[in-house]
């Protein structure tokens, strides 16, 4: 057992850190992290400018084979980059990037890999996600959006929801039903395409007034058969490959660790009743417990990544990694607000707001992260069924 990185990996970490520290300086005022990228024009311009630099360095696709624009490194290098970028809150990876890339890498044809991956590596694509529907949330296999063959195309009709960032996107991936007679999750197909006629987005405003989510209405949207990733009716597995990849994500823990460091600093500098918060035994206990939790979350993410480098199926571990970090970040935000008391409720517009109101924002965003991409409960189901072998019904 060895927790040490190679000298080359340490060198890469230094490069990533130097870059991210520099890019972080250019963040718009009150920047709280990548979830704000789609919200304002300013945030989006910052995101795009960072992503283009990252792409130029080849850091979006460190573990991909070189023929698809990758660097031929291992997943560990990618993990280090994700960790560093998230820690410095630099929006360095486009939304849904890892999900789509994993699907194409695992299930795409040679031709599709050559068509899509180099473009993604150059950050030329902004994806919108067409998975959930009004009546297919946690029960995603209940989706009713249909795709019907018509000549060389499929014609897609239906409604999607929680289409994060669609108002900034140029491409969409859609999971649609191609065979209603097959068992539910066996009749689905995974399409990718440029957004065009037949797709309409409507904003679905988040509780903090942010515009991240959208509803998507699909009306006779034509997609070439060439743009099916994987085989016809194999879409569920393409989607799950991406999900597992996205869930085994170190970014959540790395970003939360940075937020915790801010809270610790606040407690060192803030007095209450003539005593620094950092001297109060109860606060020391709570902060130390979060330090332990983030250390555990980061180490577990490395463990999952290690299993991935060995080619193991990590569905259960990935689900555990994701739900643990999401729940942790939500708990941190709520605890930070509690420690800050009335100040904790102030929003960024006030000069009195600590950290530009970051923690009250996080307490709202994090309530969505324990739902998006699989609720905590769904992830526990995945662990129980695939990891522990418990019966499904």
């Amino acid at each position, binding site marked *: 057992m060895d*927790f*040490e990185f190679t000298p080359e990996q340490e060198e890469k970490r230094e490069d990533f850190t130097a870059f991210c520290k520099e890019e972080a300086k250019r963040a718009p005022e009150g920047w709280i992290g990548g979830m704000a990228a789609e919200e304002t024009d300013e945030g989006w311009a910052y995101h795009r400018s960072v992503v283009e630099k990252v792409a130029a360095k080849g850091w979006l696709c460190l573990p991909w084979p070189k023929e698809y624009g990758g660097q031929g490194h291992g997943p560990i290098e990618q993990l280090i980059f994700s960790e560093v970028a998230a820690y410095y809150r630099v929006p360095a990876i486009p939304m849904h990037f890892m999900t789509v890339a994993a699907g194409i890498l695992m299930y795409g044809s040679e031709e599709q890999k050559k068509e899509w991956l180099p473009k993604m590596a150059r950050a030329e694509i902004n994806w919108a996600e067409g998975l959930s529907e009004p009546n297919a949330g946690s029960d995603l296999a209940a989706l009713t959006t249909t795709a019907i063959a018509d000549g060389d195309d499929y014609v897609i009709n239906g409604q999607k929801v929680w289409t994060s960032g669609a108002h900034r996107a140029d491409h969409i991936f859609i999971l649609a039903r191609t065979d209603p007679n097959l068992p539910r999750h066996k009749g689905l197909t995974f399409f990718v395409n440029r957004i065009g006629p037949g797709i309409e987005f409507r904003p679905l405003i988040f509780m903090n007034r942010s515009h991240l989510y959208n509803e998507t209405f699909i009306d006779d949207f034509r997609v070439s058969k060439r743009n099916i990733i994987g085989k016809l009716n194999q879409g569920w597995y393409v989607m799950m490959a991406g999900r597992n990849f996205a869930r085994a994500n170190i970014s959540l823990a790395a970003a939360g660790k940075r937020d915790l460091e801010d809270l610790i600093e606040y407690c060192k500098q803030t007095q209450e009743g003539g005593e620094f918060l950092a001297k109060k035994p109860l606060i020391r206990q709570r902060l130390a417990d979060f330090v332990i939790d983030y250390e555990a979350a980061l180490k577990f993410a490395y463990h999952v990544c290690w299993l991935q480098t060995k080619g193991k199926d990590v569905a259960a571990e990935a689900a555990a990694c994701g739900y643990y970090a999401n729940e942790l970040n939500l708990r941190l935000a709520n605890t930070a607000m509690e420690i800050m008391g009335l100040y904790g409720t102030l929003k960024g517009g006030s000069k009195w707001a600590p950290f530009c109101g970051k923690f009250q924002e996080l307490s709202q965003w994090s309530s969505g992260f324990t739902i998006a991409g699989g609720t905590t409960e769904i992830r526990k189901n995945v662990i129980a069924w695939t990891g522990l072998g418990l*019966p499904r019904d």
Partner: protein
Amino acid sequence: MGGSMNLDFTEEQEILRRTARDFLAKEFPKTLVREMEEDASGFRADIWKKMAELGWMGLIVPEDYDGIGGGFIDLLVLLEETGRACLVAPFFSTTICTFPLLDAGSEDQKKIFLPRIAAGEEIFALALTEPTASYDAAGVTTKATGEKKGYLINGTKLFVHDAQAAHHLLCVARTNFQSPPEEGISLFFVDAGSQGLKVVSLPTIADDKQNEVVFDNVLVPEGNMIGELNGGWPVVRRLLERASVAKCAEMIGGADWVVENCIAYAKERVQFGKPIGSFGIIQHYLAQMWTELGHARWLVYYAGWLLDRGLPCAREAATAKARMSEVYRHCTRMGVQILGGIGTTREHDMGLYYRRARQALPLFGSPDSCREKLAHEIGL
């Protein structure tokens, strides 16, 4: 420097694990665990001898002293198995007392004791804690005063595991009351048959053979001092870091047993016409136990790896001990809940783990004290 990340155990470690698991399943079944809980000696000579033959007591003893020369991760692997089996033996005590000998013992002391430890001929018990029940230097008030013939030790040690079975006690005593607490501590090995030494057993939740040990003018030859006069505390601190991480490994083994057996039970036990493991609430209990244990485990392995490499580990040991203690306690609490009534009985093995989790929690640092140490380490 320049490693290469590898989060697997070595093939040798996997063999050690399998051998230990097979041996304990055969030689130390739960019926024997229960028998030994009632047995005041806490010691079975025949099994101890076989453990020595397997090289367990010599695992961390260098080859030059007839040991195996294993590392700290090797020890963690073995302790996961003894924790899983609920082994009742003075193995943990003897092992942690081996560290000060390795760190600070003279060449003569090493030559005398290490081969005997490895051969299973020498049982050690750590006499550190006192009625203050703390693991800091200020808690040590037992005094050793220099005399012509050696040192006279006076004081009361409490929570001393395995003193009833030991050949020698490793006594942590104060040799200077004027200096700061950390600078007036010395270590002595004390013959368990010494005049003036009294051992009184303490009944505990885990029936784990703890004792009150009273030193009443116990005379110890000068040559029995381990390390420098007044230089004992740094040695004890390193011992405590290792002991706390080692205790975590036992807890991992116990928690693994609990999670595995609860999963198996949930698949078999039928209520309302279905296995209870098909109910969402039970699935989520188990998924959470598995996830929390999966996370805590890596804190322990990371701390163990630092110790294996001889790197500083104060913060990481506290991190591991705080979390693993609470995760083990929670796993056993939920384990009883999943098993239902039978889990609360003396008949079922679950109670063995439930009680051990509550015993291990305060040993070598309670979660609260570990978090306070951690808070201090991060500059709060």
